[in-house]
């Protein structure tokens, strides 16, 4: 374990703190939120006040309540999408790295092909064909962002499979599957965790972009992305409609990056 510089440690702690607050807010949204997120409760585009902490939007809905519920959506989409990506990436990376040869070439060339697509266009194209809803968003983001994890895991497997304890496991009669999942995978966890954390930031951004373009989470369900979309026409009259979700996305993504970088240092992961 390396010692972190003070500055970096502080950033990581701030990141963890912000993420924790967001997670708690998301979980307890129904208790914290003063209003129903999709109910029209007041005049439209009211500026932030004591009654409406973040103001109201173009339809007169309470932005604070919408932001809380939006946190639920955005964080869940990020988490599920990144879980899908990590599972797929780990599986393919493990198989490619462990078996090598032709299997490796086939998998890694497919990864190259996938990476060659600009992923946002790929996602948009798929989303246009599917009904845009929250489940499709999670799955599509997951299915288009596993390649980095696959490369990473393959590299780790290539390194670890040559270590003597893997040979020792073979010599006591462990099967390939057992060696892959019981012996090598736990030793490859550190970079996977780091990649997952950074990947979640990416997934939240992608979800926001998709929702902003109207192909992600559909109204009236609030997500930070589609709250931003709603704000487009009101930038001048009600800037808080854009600023609030914008800052939340920024904070979430930045915090996850800080946490990811902190983990990278802490777990001594290179690259």
């Amino acid at each position, binding site marked *: 374990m390396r010692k972190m510089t003070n500055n970096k440690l502080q950033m990581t702690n701030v990141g963890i703190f912000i993420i924790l607050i967001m997670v708690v807010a998301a979980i307890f949204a129904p208790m914290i939120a003063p209003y129903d997120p999709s109910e029209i409760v007041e005049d439209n585009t009211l500026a932030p006040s004591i009654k409406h902490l973040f103001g109201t939007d173009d339809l007169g809905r309470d932005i604070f309540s919408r932001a809380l519920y939006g946190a639920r959506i955005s964080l869940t989409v990020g988490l599920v999408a990144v879980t899908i990506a990590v599972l797929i990436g780990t599986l393919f990376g493990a198989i490619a790295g462990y078996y*090598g*040869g032709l299997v490796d070439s086939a998998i890694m060339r497919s990864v190259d092909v996938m990476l060659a697509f600009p992923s946002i266009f790929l996602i948009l194209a798929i989303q246009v064909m599917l009904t845009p809803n929250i489940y499709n968003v999670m799955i599509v983001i997951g299915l288009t962002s596993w390649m980095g994890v696959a490369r990473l895991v393959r590299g780790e497997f290539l390194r670890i499979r040559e*270590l*003597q*304890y893997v*040979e*020792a*496991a*073979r*010599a*006591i*009669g*462990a*099967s390939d599957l*057992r060696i892959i999942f*019981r*012996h090598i995978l*736990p*030793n490859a966890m550190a970079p996977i965790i780091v990649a997952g954390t950074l990947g979640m930031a990416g997934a939240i951004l992608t979800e926001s972009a998709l929702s902003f373009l109207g192909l992600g989470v559909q109204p009236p369900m609030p997500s930070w992305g589609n709250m931003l979309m709603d704000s487009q026409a009101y930038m001048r009259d009600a800037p808080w409609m854009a600023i609030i979700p914008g800052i939340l996305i920024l904070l979430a993504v930045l915090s996850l990056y800080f946490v990811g970088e902190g983990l990278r240092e802490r777990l001594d992961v290179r690259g």
Partner: protein
Amino acid sequence: MLEVKGLSTSFYQDEVEVKAVNDVSLSVASGESLGVVGESGSGKSTLALSLLRLIYPPGKIVSGEVLFDGQDLLKLSEPEMIKVRGARISMIFQDPFTSLNPVFTVGYQIAEAIALHQGANRKQAWSKAVEMLETVRIPHPALRIRDYPHQFSGGMRQRVMIAMALACRPEILIADEPTTALDVTIQAEILKLLKDLQKELKLSIIYITHNFGIVKQMCERAVVMHLGKVVEEGRIQEIMDNPREAYTKSLIDSLKVLNDRS
């Protein structure tokens, strides 16, 4: 009990074949210990891995027979071979610092070997693992079994490796330079342990080393390997007193030089 006939293992790189083990024949009787002596690169480790069929691309076992109780191991399917590894033929390695998995307790790793072959449940396997630590003379086995590899010294780790390898009471133990990475006093302890265990468990040991001194101490018979071939075979005393090959003589002389210096 183990008879190797005309075994050849090659590695292929850029269409070039490198014969790491070339037409090697040898035999080990039950309870006997056989030394395999040779310099680095003479093919002795490849020979050891070939016996357990642990050769992976770009390497390949090209020809020969490995008869174990009359059965040719090279003809078994992989699932059948998995049942042989660890259960009937086991192996310990050169570097005890990298041959234990750092993320598991030593108890887990020994118990795994037992559970794999004997279908024992977790509790039985665990208590047997404690027994094994005691067998390899690790003090306070019931406490140390919950420790991770990094909490052990090199010599202790090699003992854990031995416990792992012997947990299922194999008939043959292949020891691939098990003391090379250890300092001389620890080396002597491990050698003594192996010798004691051999008697206790009626074990055959194939002892792979470059050190004639160790072979002399551990084995009755030895084969000398050079460039993948067996160049000399016989009782250790005869080989040492009267080496037929110039290569064998140079190996023995290198030992004398060391002895004279120290």
